[in-house]
């Protein structure tokens, strides 16, 4: 599933369409979102370097970590350093987002931060329009004007939301998405830092929502006992839920597990429980008669108490006193009057059984099919 996300980021957008947008969200219970972001970033960068992706360059808006961190990260992941310089531009909103350094009188031995040519400083995070135009300028700067596109990654939208309002951030992301030169865009957000409407707003703007959920849910007893097992488990493993909006207007829900190790994040198919289906997407069909699979199987297995079972065997008088397995000692415990199919089935621990006691043994076969035949009036 993470593969499919990487593929969709690599393929970018078709002509006339908005760019695919990925939201990665995590929370305090499971703070592996940054690692997931790094994973996708490194993948995309290596694909750009190889030339396999639609995007010809990457603009990274660094709000949460310093640009040097990213350059090191890309180098560690094996992207060639010269290609990083050529095809990756970093907009540094981390060092001085609110332009304080100019206002503070300079210290004596202040070290000038080493400037790299692909890192540009951005000093006014509050001005969203300026941010938008800087991103677009950076992108145009290295892919040119024509048809080539570039990708954008925003490190932490939560940091942006500190300084500006939600509509302006949503507007920024939407404008970036609908710009002709953007191939794909992805961002990270810590969903528990904000009101729920922030997550829904970003989900509205994006085409893929990937959320990192804890493997073990946090309960009150965990909190009180300071369950270190829980902490340990949740810090290296998580569930990865993906909600894809497809082009045909349908939603695809996927689930995976992710593990942290030395190198980075690894994705694996879900091991333990069944796949997670969002029940709210099922419509309310009239007369909600859906049977679960298990119920259907049980119902199919029920042997109906007809003399003719319809399978070509000799007519066997089905006698409830002799149960299907001869081990059962006391069938008389069963109520003979209940003939119901489903309610009984559910009462007897999910196995469909029909208990039918014949009136007497010397009845002819098929004679019980119309008890009124006995009447001699």
């Amino acid at each position, binding site marked *: 599933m993470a593969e499919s996300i990487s593929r969709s980021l690599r393929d970018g957008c078709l002509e006339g369409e908005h760019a695919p947008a990925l939201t990665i969200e995590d929370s305090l219970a499971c703070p592996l979102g940054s690692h997931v972001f790094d994973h996708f970033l490194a993948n995309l960068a290596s694909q750009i370097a190889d030339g396999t992706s639609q995007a010809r360059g990457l603009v990274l808006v660094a709000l949460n970590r310093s640009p040097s961190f990213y350059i090191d990260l890309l180098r560690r992941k094996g992207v060639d350093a010269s290609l990083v310089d050529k095809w990756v531009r970093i907009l540094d909103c981390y060092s001085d987002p609110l332009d304080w350094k100019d206002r503070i009188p300079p210290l004596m031995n202040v070290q000038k931060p080493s400037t790299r040519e692909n890192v540009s400083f951005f000093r006014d995070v509050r001005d969203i329009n300026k941010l938008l135009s800087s991103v677009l300028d950076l992108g145009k700067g290295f892919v040119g004007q024509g048809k080539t596109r570039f990708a954008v990654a925003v490190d932490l939208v939560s940091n942006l939301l500190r300084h500006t309002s939600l509509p302006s951030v949503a507007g920024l992301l939407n404008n970036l998405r609908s710009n002709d030169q953007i191939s794909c865009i992805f961002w990270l957000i810590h969903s528990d830092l904000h009101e729920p409407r922030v997550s829904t707003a970003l989900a509205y703007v994006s085409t893929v929502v990937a959320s990192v959920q804890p493997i073990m849910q946090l309960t009150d007893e965990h909190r009180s006992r300071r369950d270190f097992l829980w902490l340990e488990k949740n810090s290296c493993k998580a569930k990865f839920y993906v909600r894809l909006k497809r082009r045909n207007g349908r939603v695809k829900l996927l689930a995976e597990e992710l593990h942290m190790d030395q190198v980075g994040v690894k994705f694996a198919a879900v091991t333990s429980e069944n796949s997670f289906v969002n029940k709210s*997407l099922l419509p309310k069909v009239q007369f909600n008669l859906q049977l679960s699979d298990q119920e259907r199987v049980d119902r199919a297995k029920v042997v109906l108490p007809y003399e003719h079972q319809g399978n070509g065997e000799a007519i066997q008088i089905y006698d409830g006193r002799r149960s299907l397995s001869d081990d059962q000692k006391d069938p008389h415990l069963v109520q003979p009057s209940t003939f119901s199919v489903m309610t009984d089935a559910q009462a007897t621990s999910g196995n469909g059984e029909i208990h039918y006691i014949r009136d007497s043994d010397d009845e002819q076969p098929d004679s019980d099919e119309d008890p009124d035949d006995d009447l001699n009036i």
Partner: protein
Amino acid sequence: MATAADGRLQGARSANTSSFSRARSSPSAVLPSPPNPGVKLGPNGATFVSSGIPDLDTILGGGFLLGSLVMVMEDADAPHHLLLLRNFMSQGVVHRQPVLFASPLRDPRAFLGTLPSPVSSSKEHRQRDTLVDHNQQDQEKGLRIAWQYKKYFGDQQSSQNHNRDVKQEFSNDFDLRKTLERQHVQYIESMSIQDIPHLTILRDRCSNFLSGLPRSDGGNLSAGRIAIQSLCAPQCGYAEMDWDLVAFIRFLRSIIRSSNVVAVVTFPTSFLLPAFLKRWQHLADTLLSVRAIPDEDKDMAKLLTGYQDMLGLLHVHKVAQNNSQVPTVLEASTFSLKLQKRRSLVLERLNQAPVEASSGTSYSTSGTCSGPSKGSSLDF
């Protein structure tokens, strides 16, 4: 062709009209065509305009009521509300009704370039209609043309019908693969609502639109349409001004109520706070919602027939009832959106697929007609 349409309309109307329904008889009778085919008169002084989707008109009991506010709750995952808007606006274009379109896109005219054009072939209409239409059968019998000449005569007749179609039909089928030509959409007014800081601009635009409409005089009824897409989309500047949005909707509803305009407003529900979502739902006269369906869901494929062709689901929450105390009770309120022949939008009732048990009891809820069942009360 007009007969098929009339037959359908007749069926729809006889569901909830008094005994004073004007009987549209056979097409051979010389009747003056209604002054404006885009507007239909209904019971209790109601006037309807078509929504652009014939099935939806039937479900709602005639169409969108003039003077009502239709709100469509969007699903964040799927763009089906755009289908409804497109058909709504195209219908307005076909009937030459003034249309105002407001959208959070930077360039709303780009969206106007995707409006579908009406289906031109009338033979398709005849084949599609599964209700028995006696008038038409009589007509076919009356022709008595040798079979090898029928194809020539058929074409001529269809072209005749086509002319009558364009003039007389209340609601058209739209071909979603073909778009309307530029010259037709030129006159649609459009505005972008993304960058406006507050709603007074939109409010003024709506008032101007309404005052600019031709007054309806005597027999000549005119109608106007307002289409607002994604009113509270998160990227709009005013998106967090909850009370202002509620005030705007109340304003819109009040100016429309005494005019001959129908407004369709779509909005993303996930972004609204729950209390405000309730307020918006109560302010609507007609409330619809579109929902996405999960892809490749085996459970759902087993549950519903026709799962493969479904685009999404449409749910009707509320139907407008002005001037009437009688509520419209729908037989079914959830419908599936499908594309018929990949081009026109149909709504079908949801049929539950037969259960796979060996006894083979089928719990399908709708009738067994093979074509799309339109939920008409004429189904036996």
